[in-house]
C-alpha cells in the first residue's frame, strides 16, 4: 500500500512539474509575441520577419539590411518603448507579488505603500509649477524635473509610511497598510488641489501622467533610469524563501530562522525603488501589480519561487499588450495606458472576486 501511494505521489509530482513548465512556456511565448507585435505594429507596419532581421542586424549579425526607414522605426522609436514596457511591467508585477506576500493580503498593490501617490504628488507639483521651477533653476526642464521629482517623491512618501509603522526597530504590517491608505488619501487630496489651481496645459499633462503612458520614451531618457527599475525588481526574487515563510506569519518565519525585520525593510525598499523609477518614466499605471500575481497564483500556486519570476514575465507581456492597444485603437492619437489596464483589469478582478466567493460557497 505504502509503495503504491509513493508511486502515485511521484507521478503527481512529475505531472505537476510538467504543468508548471508548460505554463511558464505559455507566459514566455506571450511575452515574445507581445515584444514582436510591439516592434512590428504601428503607423508604419514592419513585417515580423523584417523585425527579426533588424534585431539580428543591431546585434551585429551580417544579415541583409532591411528598408532603412523601417530600421529607424524599429530601433529608435519602438525598441526603447518595448524595453520600457518590459521593465515596467515586470517591476510592477514583481513589486505587487512581493507586497501581497509581505502583507499577506491579496488586495495589496505597489501603490499601497505610498510610492505611486507620492510620486504622483511630486510629479504633479513639478508639472503645475513647471514655469516657476524653470525660472528659478533654468537647467531643470520639465522633461528632467518631472521624473526626478516623481522618483524622489515616491521614495520620500514610502519612507514616511514605513517610519510611521515602525517602533523600536519593528515594523507592524497592519499599521503599514493603514498608514499607506491614509497617506494615499492625503496625497490624493493634495493632487486634487493641484488640479484645481492648474491651467489647461498643466491639467492636460497632469491627466496624462496620472493615467500613465509609455509614449515619448527615447534611449536617452530610458538609459539612466533602466537600471533603477530592473536591478531592484530582480533583487526581489531573492526573497522567495522569506516570502513563503511569511505566509505562515511573522513569528513563524522568525522561528524558521529568517531575519524577518531585515527582510521587511529590504522588500519595501526594493519595491519603492523599482516602482518609483518606473512611475517616474511612465506615470501611474494601475492594476498590473494587483492582477498579474493573482493570475500567476491561479495557474501555478502560491510558492514565491515560481510566483515572482512568472509574475515578471506575465507582467511584461500584459503591459506590452496594453500598450499595443493604447497606441493603436484611436490612431493617430494615443490612449493613456492606465485607461487600458484599468478597463481590462477592473472587470477581471471583479470576476476573480465573484469566482472566489462562489468557490467558498460550494
Amino acid at each position, binding site marked *: 500500500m505504502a509503495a503504491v*501511494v*509513493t508511486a502515485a*505521489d511521484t507521478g*503527481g509530482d512529475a505531472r505537476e512539474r510538467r504543468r508548471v513548465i508548460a505554463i511558464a512556456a505559455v507566459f514566455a511565448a506571450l511575452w515574445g509575441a507581445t515584444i514582436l507585435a510591439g516592434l512590428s505594429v504601428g503607423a508604419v507596419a514592419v513585417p515580423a520577419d523584417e523585425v527579426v532581421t533588424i534585431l539580428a542586424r543591431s546585434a551585429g549579425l551580417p544579415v541583409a539590411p532591411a528598408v532603412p526607414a523601417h530600421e529607424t522605426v524599429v530601433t529608435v522609436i519602438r525598441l526603447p518603448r518595448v524595453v520600457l514596457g518590459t521593465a515596467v511591467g515586470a517591476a510592477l508585477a514583481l513589486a505587487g507579488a512581493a507586497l*501581497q*506576500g509581505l502583507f*499577506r*493580503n*491579496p488586495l495589496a498593490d505597489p501603490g499601497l505603500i505610498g510610492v505611486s501617490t507620492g510620486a504622483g504628488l511630486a510629479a504633479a507639483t513639478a508639472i503645475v509649477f513647471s514655469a516657476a521651477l524653470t525660472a528659478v533653476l533654468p537647467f531643470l526642464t520639465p522633461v528632467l524635473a518631472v521624473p526626478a521629482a516623481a522618483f524622489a517623491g515616491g521614495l520620500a512618501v514610502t519612507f514616511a509610511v514605513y517610519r510611521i509603522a515602525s517602533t523600536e526597530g519593528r515594523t507592524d504590517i497592519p499599521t503599514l497598510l493603514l498608514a499607506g491608505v491614509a497617506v494615499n488619501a492625503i496625497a490624493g487630496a493634495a493632487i486634487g488641489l493641484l488640479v484645481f489651481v492648474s491651467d489647461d496645459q498643466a491639467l492636460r499633462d497632469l491627466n496624462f501622467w496620472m493615467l500613465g503612458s509609455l509614449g515619448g520614451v527615447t534611449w536617452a531618457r530610458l538609459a539612466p533610469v533602466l537600471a533603477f527599475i530592473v536591478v531592484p525588481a530582480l533583487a526581489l526574487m531573492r526573497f522567495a*524563501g522569506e516570502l*513563503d*515563510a*511569511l*505566509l*505562515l*506569519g511573522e*513569528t*513563524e518565519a*522568525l*522561528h*524558521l*530562522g*529568517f*531575519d524577518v525585520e531585515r527582510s521587511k525593510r529590504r522588500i519595501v525598499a526594493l519595491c519603492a525603488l523599482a516602482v518609483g523609477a518606473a512611475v517616474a518614466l511612465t506615470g501611474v499605471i494601475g492594476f498590473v501589480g494587483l492582477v498579474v500575481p493573482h493570475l500567476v*497564483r491561479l495557474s501555478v*500556486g*502560491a*510558492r514565491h519561487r515560481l510566483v515572482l519570476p512568472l509574475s515578471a514575465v506575465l507582467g511584461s507581456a500584459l503591459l506590452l499588450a496594453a500598450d499595443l492597444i493604447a497606441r493603436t485603437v484611436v490612431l493617430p492619437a494615443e490612449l493613456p495606458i492606465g485607461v487600458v489596464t484599468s478597463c481590462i483589469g477592473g472587470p477581471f478582478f471583479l470576476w476573480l472576486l465573484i469566482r472566489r466567493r462562489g468557490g467558498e460557497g460550494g
Partner: protein
Amino acid sequence: MLSAQGVGVARGGRVLLAGVDIAVPPGETVALIGPNGAGKSTLLHVLSGALSPDRGAVTLDDAPLADWHRTALARRRAVLPQAPALGFALTVREVVALGRSPHAGMSTPAADARIIDAALRQAGVAHLAGRAYPGLSGGERQRVQIARVLAQIVSAPGRGEAGGRYLLLDEPTNNLDIGHQQRIVTLARRLARRGGGVLAVLHDPNLAAACADRVVVLAGGTVITAGAPAAVLDAALMREVFGVRVRVYVDADSGRPFVRPV
C-alpha cells in the same frame, strides 16, 4: 539543554513573568500548565527567542540564544504555533516543506523529500499532501503544522549537528480529537526518547499528568512548583492555582495521577 534563568518580562507596566527558572533537558517531556493569563505563552515566546526577556537569560547548550545564528538555532528547535491561517493557498506538502528552509545548503532535494514524507506520515497527514491548506479543518491544520515542525528539526543524513533537538508546543492538542491528541503525545514522547527535549503548553492537567516527565506550574508570572506529575498534582495545588476543588485518583498501571472536579 534549553533553559531560562531568572527570566522577567514586563509590558506596559504589567509584569508578565518574574524570576522564572525553567529547564528542558534532552530526553524529557516537560508540560507547562497554569490558569489563563499565567504567562505560559509569554514564557514559550521567551524560550523560542521570539521575545527578548527584560531580565534573565535563555540559553541553549549554555550559549545565550542571542549568540546563536538564527538558522542554526532554527535547525535545533522548532515552535508549533496555534494552527495559523495562511496568506495564500499553499498545499499541505508545501507548508511542511517550509520546515526545511533552515537547512538550505545543508541538505539535498532528495533528502528533503524523504524527510517531508516521513513527517507527513508521522503526523498522520500523508493523505492530505496535495490538498490546499486553507481548505482544511482546524484539527487537520494543527497536524500539518506538527508535520512542519517535525521536518524542521531533522538533519539531512551525514549533515547532522551535535546536540539535542527541541520542540516547543503551544497548545498542541487544541482542536484535536482524543485519537489525534494521543498521537501527538506519542510523537512528543518518542522525540524525547531519542534525546530531544519537548516543552508543551497544555490546558488539560490530566493530559499533562499522563504524558509529561515533569510538570511546571505557572501562575501570576512565576513558577509555583515543578516536578514529577505524581509529586505536583494534588488537591491543594489545584485549589490554589485553578480555584477548583478536585479529587485526585491514581492510575493503577502507570502510577500517574488524574484529577476530577468535585
